[in-house]
Structure formats: structure tokens, C-alpha cells
């Protein structure tokens, strides 16, 4: 994958849809790949507008209302029951979420 550090050089670049859809764990049809490639190219050329702004001396903003280190008192309180937590799960097993195997059996 291309690694350009400047937005300007990427403006004309096209998203590597196969690579990104793998990163996003998002299956796409061929039709979607073609369509998104075109549409997102338009969006990327539009956002390249930000190159006009000199931000050399500007710190990126982090939290908009200046809150920091918000914690709660370390006390237990009622929370969801196991039964409630599993209520919407498509597959459960013995009170757990059931997922497809990640590693194949040897």
C-alpha cells in the first residue's frame, strides 16, 4: 500500500478498497467496490481542500469541553444480569455467547 505523508499527493489517489474492506471486516459486492471507489474519490478530492489551511502552529483539538480524567467512585452497583446480557445474542451456549471457531481443529 502506498504511504504518502502529505494529503496533497493523496488527493488524486484512490482508496485501495480490497485492503480497506479487509481492515474493516466489511464484505462488499463487486458492484459496491466499483461504485464506492468512484464516489469516495470525489469525497477525497473535496476534503483535500484542507491543504489550503496552514496548520503548522496549530495543536490538534482533543476534547471539545476540556474535561479530563473523569472517574466514578469505585463502588459496585447493580448492572445487567447474565440473562439480560445474553437476551439478544443469536447463539448462546451454557450462558455464554457462542462464536464461530477462529482456529481450525488440528
Amino acid at each position, binding site marked *: 500500500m502506498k504511504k504518502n505523508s502529505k494529503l496533497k499527493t493523496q488527493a488524486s489517489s484512490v482508496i485501495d478498497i480490497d485492503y480497506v474492506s479487509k481492515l*474493516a471486516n466489511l464484505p462488499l459486492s463487486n458492484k459496491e467496490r466499483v461504485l464506492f471507489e468512484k464516489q469516495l474519490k470525489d469525497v477525497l478530492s473535496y*476534503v483535500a481542500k484542507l491543504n489550503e489551511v496552514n496548520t503548522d502552529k496549530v495543536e490538534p*483539538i482533543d476534547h471539545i469541553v476540556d474535561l479530563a480524567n473523569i472517574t466514578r467512585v469505585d463502588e459496585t452497583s447493580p448492572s445487567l444480569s447474565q440473562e439480560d446480557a445474553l437476551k439478544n445474542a443469536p447463539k448462546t451456549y451454557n450462558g455464554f455467547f457462542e462464536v464461530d471457531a477462529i482456529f481450525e481443529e488440528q
Partner: protein
Amino acid sequence: MKNVSDLTIREASDLLSSKQIKAQELAQAFLEIAHGQNKKLNSLITICDDAALNQAKKVDKLIANGQKLNPLAGIPIGIKDLFSTKNIRTTAGSKVLENYIPVYDATSVDRLNNANACVVGKTNLDAWAHGSSGENSDFGPTNNPYDLLRVPGGSSSGSAVSVASGSSLAAMGTDTGGSIRLPASFCNVVGLKPSYGRVSRYGVIAMASSLDCIGHFTKTVYDNALVLNVTAGEDGFDSTCTVQKTDDYTKDIENGVKNLKIGIPKEYFESLDQKIKGLILEAVKKLEKLGVTVEDVSLPNTEYGVATYYIIQPSEVSSNLARYDGVRFGKTREKFGSEAKRRIILGTYTLSAGYYDAYYLKAMRVRRLIRNDFAEAFKKVDVIICPVSPTLPFKLGEKVNDPLQMYLADIFTVTANLAGVPSLAIPCGFIDGLPVGMQIVGPDFSEKLLYQVGYAYEQETKWYRRRPSI
């Protein structure tokens, strides 16, 4: 008595407390309207007959017992289907969650329930709140009650339409880039995007967490303040919700606008549609007659708003939607609609190794400049008045195949989200029978002032009385 759908919350609340109408009768009447209108407008994904009637029954008992109740007690409300509602299906407008039934309430819903409001329905929306027209809903588009062939604005499309058409007296929405203000403007209702952190986001399905705000729609400014009185304030479940004290937002609302300074940001008016510009400047003149002084201000980075927003927002969307894997709830990822997929791809790309600094970090730098613009302007003026939308409500289908054009519908609204400041959208007239709204924008946590200005203008015009014929 007048038609129930013409009532304001204030009027309905008086009727209830003076026992001229029962909460159950009121709930029944609104449920009938909801069922009757939904084929035409498609503003509701789920109509909650049982929940509304049970709550109304409880309210009638409390009133009979002479209890002092919140003004929202017995008031029929709609909830955007992005808010978790215990035991009531919550879809986010997406097939991914078409069978999802939350086991807890969002904090704002919990507070409304405690104030004894009656939830009549879960309102339609662009799936995951992605959209400016309502057309991205997997449950079909919502129609504008003032012209059924036009969009109601999005993403809180169903909430705006429900209030405008009279199937509820208030409705909750979310605003990440204009999703309350745009539909409010297109449907002749009042919509508040509060300051970032004013209202808890707990239990509301997250879109872009550094931008998301929880707000609501009502017919009038006073009604809007009544709802914020219930929803605002600190919440132990949302660490981004501020500990800043809340006000009684209805107090001083009638104080008028004498000696206030209103700023007109030139960047918002330069290439604005002449008719829309005319209506907004007419509104400013009305306020001048009431005693405000008007001053030109500049928000020089306005033109970078949409570009900044369309980096930050999809980046955060891709991260928030990563949790939908079909393991704990909901269906699998191929069920996402086109717009969600587009944003996941774009956001994953802008956050990916080698691109993060050039896109997300760059955008967060420009975002600081946009916030600084507002801070500078508010040194000179108390509030800013500007348009909500560059166009009138557009035709259904007009922009669906051109995402960039759709994104540009938010050109005047994204800046308030990027800056974190509150903005109140209120009706300011009609062009060719279609509603037009304007924004009153203020400094952080100035909601009370925004209501004061909005209320003063509304007393002169009462656009909310011009109801759609459906």
C-alpha cells in the same frame, strides 16, 4: 377544544392539570393520529400503543391523587429509533438491528419516563443517523408533511415529521452534523442542538463520538425549554457529559432581547439563495425592532467545515460501527446499507496506518481553528444568526446518487458540531409553501440565552401556527 395535534406542550399540560382532558384520552388521540398518518408519512418505525397507554394510566392516577407533576407528564412524545428503549425494539433505521430489543433505557429516555412523558413511537431516521434527507432508512424514506414529494431533512427525519404533523408534541433526536436542525428547518418546527456534553449520550447508539449531541424537537421555543429541563445534566454513565450546572431554561425566557448584540457572519450569506437570505434578514430586522443591535462578524474557516467534518465523522463512524459483529446482538456486517458501508470504508481508510496524520490529525487541527473562530466572534456579540440550509427542502431522490452533494446540505450546520457550541433552529417563514429555518448560535452552554432570543422572535411571528394539511 382545539384539535389535539395543534396543541403545544404548555397548553396540553394545562388541560391535563386542570382535568379538562385525561392523559389516557390524550395518548389515545395521538396514537390514532400516528396510526392514521403513518402510511402517508412513514415517520414512525414502531408505534408504542401499550407503553403509551400504561404510562398515561399512571399519570391519570397521579393527577387524581393531586400529585405535583413535571409539565411533561402525560405528554405524548416520539423517540428517534437510535435511543435504546427497554423492551421496545430499537433499530437505528438499519436491518442490522431489525430484531434488537434493548434491555435498558438511554439516560434521556429514562429521565423522560421519570417525568411521566408518554412514548407514542420510535421515529424513523437515516440508518445509523447517516444522512441529510431521511432517505437512507432501511425502513423506507419519510415524507415532508408540507409537500409529500419532498424530503423532511435528516437524519432525525421521523422526529421532525412527527412533531410537525401532530403525532407527538415533542420528539427526541440526535445532531452530529445538523441532524436535528436541518429537519427542524424543513418541517417548520423548533430543534435544539445543545452544547456538546450538555445532555447525556448514554444508551444512544453512537455515530461520531466527538460530535454527537442529544437534542429534541417541539412546536414552540417554550416547549423546547421544558424538554431540556428534563434531559440536561450530569450523568454517571457518560463521562463526556459535563458537570456544569443546568438552568431552569424557561426562567427569564420572556425577558426580551433589549441590549443584546447579534452577529451576522458574512461567510454564511455570501452566496446564499436570495429568497432564503431575504427571510433571515427580515427576521433579524424584527429582532432589531425589539432592541438588539446587529453587527457583522467573520467566521473565516467556515468554508473548511464540511471537509473537516467528512474526515472526522466517518473516521469515528468506522470505529463505532466496528462493534456490530452479530455476536452479542444484531445481524452480521453484510446487512449494513450503502451509506454506512461507504462511511466505514472512508473512515477506515483515513484512520489507517500512513494516512492518520494526513487526514484525522489534520482535520483536528482545522477543527481547533473553527472553534477559535466562534470564540473570537463571541467576544464581540452575544449570539450569531445564520441560515440552517442552503436550499429549500429538496425532492425525494434528487441527491441519493451523489453522496458529495448530499453531504453539502450540511454546510451551515456542521460548524456548530465541530466547535461544540449550541444552536437553536427556529422557523422563520415560508417560500413557495415550504418552511425555512434559521439558527441562533451561542457560546458554550448558552442554551438559556438562545431560548430567550428565539422566544422573543417567535412571539412576533408564530410560524408554528401554520400547520401542514395532510
